[in-house]
């Protein structure tokens, strides 16, 4: 087990390293005109050169890279081009917002998806199964920005117009301003995000549950005279959850790195929106910082998933 963990972490480090190379290569090799943008239209070549020098853009590429990695290892991702704010600080400010969004949505989609998936699988091909499946497919096909816009239109605009100003149009209210206000600002994005993902989980749980319910050990459980509820939940769901947990880890890992569209539509200044803003201003250190942070989140999530596997399945644990 320990050996497996060490191997797994080493692999993660290798992948992270490759990612820094790839990301650095992509952004620095590509032509960019940050200095020119920063300097403004009337800038002389000298000014541009000065700015490039200040940003370290005149160093050889490998030097820029080693500087970057060296600093990153010390927890320093550089400063943004415009205000000189440390990138770590920018990430630190955006992260709680993204986390609030991701974790809140995760709770909803997991409950919704697993519950409806199990229900579907227990009564396959019935009306309730078919309608759940159809609904899941509907949300699965739905582009996230479209659903977010629909939410805004109906639940914010129409409702407010009708005199029920329950939900805000967007924005974030920190926990310090009260839990109620925090939740009120997040509920629309939570549900919008959760519905999309729940669709995947319904389908995943249903399929996995149907597979498991066909297993020999489920027949054994029934032949033992157990109650159907126990057969389904203790014997069936326990096994069916393994692929769900895997998917959950990966999804959560990806969301922690920023929820681009939902944050943009609901004006939540989380990592995703911050990154998009940075992209629009070509603020490279911020872009790279967030991209690397997001990749790290995925890599860590993958490692956690593998550990969860071992926790869930004694066959993995004991070998």
């Amino acid at each position, binding site marked *: 087990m320990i050996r497996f963990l060490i191997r797994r972490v080493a*692999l993660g480090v290798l992948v992270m390293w490759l990612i820094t190379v790839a990301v650095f290569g992509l952004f620095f090799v590509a032509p960019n005109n940050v200095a020119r943008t920063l300097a403004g239209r009337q800038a002389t070549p000298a000014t541009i050169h000065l700015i490039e020098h200040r940003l370290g853009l005149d160093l050889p590429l490998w030097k820029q890279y080693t500087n970057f990695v060296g600093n990153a290892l010390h927890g320093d991702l550089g400063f943004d081009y415009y205000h000189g704010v440390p990138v770590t600080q920018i990430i630190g400010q955006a992260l709680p917002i993204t986390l609030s969004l991701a974790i809140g949505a995760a709770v909803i989609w997991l409950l919704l998806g697993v519950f409806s998936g199990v229900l579907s699988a227990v009564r396959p091909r019935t009306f309730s199964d078919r309608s759940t499946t159809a609904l899941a497919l509907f949300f699965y096909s739905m*582009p996230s920005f479209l659903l977010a816009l629909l939410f805004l*239109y109906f639940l914010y605009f129409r409702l407010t117009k009708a005199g029920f100003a329950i939900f805000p149009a967007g924005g974030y209210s920190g926990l310090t301003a009260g839990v109620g206000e925090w939740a009120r600002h997040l509920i629309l994005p939570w549900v919008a995000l959760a519905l999309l993902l729940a*669709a995947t989980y319904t389908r995943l749980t249903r*399929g996995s549950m*149907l597979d498991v319910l066909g297993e020999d050990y489920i027949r054994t459980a029934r032949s033992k005279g157990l109650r159907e509820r126990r057969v389904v939940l203790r014997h069936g769901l326990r096994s069916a959850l393994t692929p769900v947990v895997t998917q959950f880890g990966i999804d959560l890992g*990806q969301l922690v790195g920023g929820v*681009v569209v939902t944050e943009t539509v609901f004006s939540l200044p989380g990592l995703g929106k911050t990154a998009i803003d940075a992209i629009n201003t070509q603020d490279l250190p911020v*872009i790279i910082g967030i991209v690397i942070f997001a990749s790290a989140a995925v890599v860590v999530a993958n490692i956690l998933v593998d550990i969860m596997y071992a926790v869930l399945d004694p066959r993995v644990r004991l070998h």
Partner: protein
Amino acid sequence: MSDVPPVGVGAGVDSATPSQGPAGGPGAETSTGIEGRSPWVLAWQRLRHDRVAMISLVVICLIGLVAIIAPLFASVTGHPPNQQYRGPGALSPEGLPAHPSSAFWLGTDDLGRDILVRIAYGSRISLLVGVVATGMTVAIGVVVGLAAGYLGGIVDTVLARLVDVVLSVPFLLVAVALVSITGASLTITILVIGFFSWASVARIVRGQVLSLREREFVEAARSLGASDRRIMFVDVLPNVLAPVIVYATLLIPVVIVVQATLSFLGLGLPPPTADWGGMISESVQYYTVAWWFVFFPGAALLITTLAFNLFGDGVRDAFDPRTDRLIGQK
């Protein structure tokens, strides 16, 4: 990043292996003709009886037709796709988008352009990107997966890390960032999507090849003295095609959404090209005053992805008829 469907298809595709057991119940021998029906024909026959899948296919064909005859929409309505109209009926007195009317069937956008015509032209972009990027994805994925799975060893190790890297990078952010650097164009959109999507295809193909490699018919071919190349292309490849086709069908809608999302984030195609994501993006500021501006492009996008997904589901069932294991006999 995955409030947009990640590049890759969700639940259950990995299990879309063709069933190898005998068709039908125990001891059932289904075909009686001299000429056997190939697995492809059998799948098509099952698909043909799937009403939902067939309706979806018709819808997909209709969308394709709209894309082809888009200029016809322009000539019938008399409104070229990028023509901005100012008169009454095209823009409200306040300069806002105009309601659907007999002149503009689905209303106009903020610049007084005909939404119907633009939707028709937009379908060209969606389908083109969907099909071409998916094709590219599948081509790269199959080659990489086949090589990694069959050759194994160092080739496999290197490719596996490459797959890990591609799957760990926050796709949407990097894609948006790249497009912002290189400038938006159709080619760059397709390349970016293809470049970030092949990894999951490769992973699936590799898994399939690994298990196929252990099958006795591959051993049989080796014992006959067949070359690696022959085994790879004659014995292994046809057996991974079915899951790949299923995956590809389900990947098209995902790609269409990704393209729309890029456009929505302002990095799709340079204006004034009509494409659905871009139209919705422009409509965001107007959704409180012009519902049709969001609604019709949104509906077009949703109908397209839904049709592809329903069809893809049907294709999967056709290749993998999961007769719920009712009969507990071997």
